[in-house]
């Protein structure tokens, strides 16, 4: 009971702050609402039993990515608000039509999978693990079954770091 009350409260806060992020005029306010939204998502992770992921969420999102956003917002001064200029050639109708088509496809897939439910998963991987505790479980899986994706992710981060430096440098 208490858990579901907490879940619905956190969910309402997440959605409210997400709407504020999208609708606020001031970009700096938008970034600050984004921080609060990420913190509430971290709270939701704790509620769902993913403490390690909650810590990662706070460290990477609320600590790293948002600071990056704030830097960029402060660097590009928005004297001329971008919402005033409208491109007459903007094809809104076509875009809405395409996204409606994608939505229809997704609905069809959801409907289809409701009719033919997938077979239940095989024996849970977590059950066979020799360790207990959320962080240990995630770390164990990350360094055994998912070692190669882990290395590829680190490679991706390295490439992204170099790419960002090259893009943001004034002259090479």
């Amino acid at each position: 009971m208490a858990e579901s009350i907490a879940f619905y409260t956190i969910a309402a806060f997440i959605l409210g702050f997400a709407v504020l992020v999208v609708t606020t005029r001031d970009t700096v306010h938008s970034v600050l609402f984004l921080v609060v939204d990420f913190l509430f998502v971290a709270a939701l992770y704790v509620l769902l039993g993913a403490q390690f992921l909650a810590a990662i969420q706070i460290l990477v999102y609320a600590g790293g990515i948002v600071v990056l956003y704030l830097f960029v917002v402060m660097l590009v001064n928005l004297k001329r608000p971008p919402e005033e200029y409208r491109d007459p050639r903007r094809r809104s109708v076509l875009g809405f039509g395409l996204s409606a088509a994608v939505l229809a496809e997704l609905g069809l897939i959801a409907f289809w999978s409701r009719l033919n439910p997938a077979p239940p998963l095989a024996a849970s991987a977590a059950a066979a693990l020799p360790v207990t505790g959320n962080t240990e479980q995630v770390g164990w899986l990350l360094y055994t079954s998912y070692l190669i994706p882990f290395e590829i992710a680190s490679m991706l981060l390295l490439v992204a770091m170099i790419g960002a430096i090259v893009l943001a440098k004034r002259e090479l």
Partner: protein
Amino acid sequence: MVLSAALFIVGVVGVMIRRNIIIIFMSIELILNAVNINLVAYSSQQQNVVGQVFAVFVIAVAAAEAAVGLGIILAFYRNKETVNIDEMNLMRW
């Protein structure tokens, strides 16, 4: 699930209605967060940690995407003095 879908929809609407590219990037972050919530919800429902491992990968990719995207924004702003996506037509033929 409903929360994840609603957050996803807010992100997509944000991508579609705003013209400030920084806010569009923040909407993309919201979308990735919605995906993460979905992964973690299923992982706790099925007592299986694999979903959380995938969420870690999603966070890594989101960080890389944010770094590169903001680098592109900075480089573009230095040339064109704007963050409006309707004026970003360098690659239009």
